[in-house]
């Protein structure tokens, strides 16, 4: 008896898996996520710079945390989402999943670079070095190479279907690196400090510091959603250029 209801539900989900229904929906969502990101970022910066106190050990240099942690979390999370869509794309052979993977990669690479850059600028005054080949930093650098490797691989294959599959396999193989990054500070004796935030321990930092950090992390989330939706729309336009609905869309645009 439940069958029709379930069926209707799944049809609804798959409806949005079609590029022509997803395209306008994504277009409507972009400004919401974009503006939310901007507002959260301003709030996070305000809390981080005007409410959070000076750190008694690191002085003001710790204020790099507000972008460093948000960017580092995002760099790992984007990779996991990317690997998820790569898996979905390989199993169900859905075009949109593969497009989503390609849309996430540049933003993932951007946040990985930001995490490394801000980490370096933070490491110099606190540890006395710009860079060390410790497990945390090395595995994060490998993550950057995985993102670049994905882009190079896709750019090197002319047939988009083959490029999608090759990229998806790379994304899935590379996902092993994510637990290595995350647990590296536990598994090895690293120069990098342990996790700043834990769900099981009481917070070790001032509430305002934590609030600033979480606001910036949320802003990074919202920005990533907006940026990847924007990019996936361009990818749809580039790839589905033969479709009728795109021609209709162009008429609306003019």
């Amino acid at each position, binding site marked *: 008896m439940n069958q029709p209801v379930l069926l209707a539900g799944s049809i609804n989900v798959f409806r949005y898996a079609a590029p022509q229904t997803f395209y306008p929906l994504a277009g409507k969502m972009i400004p919401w996520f974009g503006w939310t990101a901007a507002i959260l970022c301003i709030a996070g910066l305000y809390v981080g*710079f*005007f409410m959070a106190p000076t750190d008694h050990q690191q002085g003001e*240099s710790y204020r790099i945390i507000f972008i460093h942690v948000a960017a580092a979390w995002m760099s790992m999370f984007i990779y996991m989402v990317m690997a998820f869509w790569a898996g979905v794309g390989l199993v169900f052979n859905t075009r949109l999943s593969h497009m989503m993977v390609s849309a996430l990669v*540049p933003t993932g690479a951007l946040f990985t*670079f*930001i995490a490394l850059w*801000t980490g370096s*600028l*933070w490491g110099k005054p606190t540890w006395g070095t710009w860079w060390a080949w410790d497990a945390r930093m090395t595995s994060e650098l490998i993550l950057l190479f995985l993102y670049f490797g994905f882009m190079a691989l896709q750019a090197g294959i002319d047939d988009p279907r083959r490029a999608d599959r090759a990229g998806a396999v790379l994304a899935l193989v590379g996902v092993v690196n994510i637990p290595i990054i995350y647990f590296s500070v536990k598994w090895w004796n690293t120069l990098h400090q342990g996790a700043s935030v834990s769900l099981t321990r009481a917070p070790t930092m001032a509430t305002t510091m934590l609030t600033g950090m979480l606001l910036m992390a949320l802003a990074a989330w919202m920005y990533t959603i907006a940026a990847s939706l924007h990019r996936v729309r361009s990818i749809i336009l580039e790839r589905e250029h033969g479709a009728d609905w795109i*021609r209709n869309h162009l008429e609306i645009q003019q």
Partner: protein
Amino acid sequence: MNWGSWSNFWMMGGYGFYVWGSYAVTFTLIAMEILLLRARRRAALDTLRQHTGAQS
């Protein structure tokens, strides 16, 4: 507000170079990504218009 004056704020307790170096590069790169996203969309739409223009 724990800075007292704007010049103290920009000094960042002597860590200005590191703190502002982090923030400046981050926001410059994000601004660049936004510009690249817009350029990609414009390019995709232009190519499509040429395509449909040539066909009709």
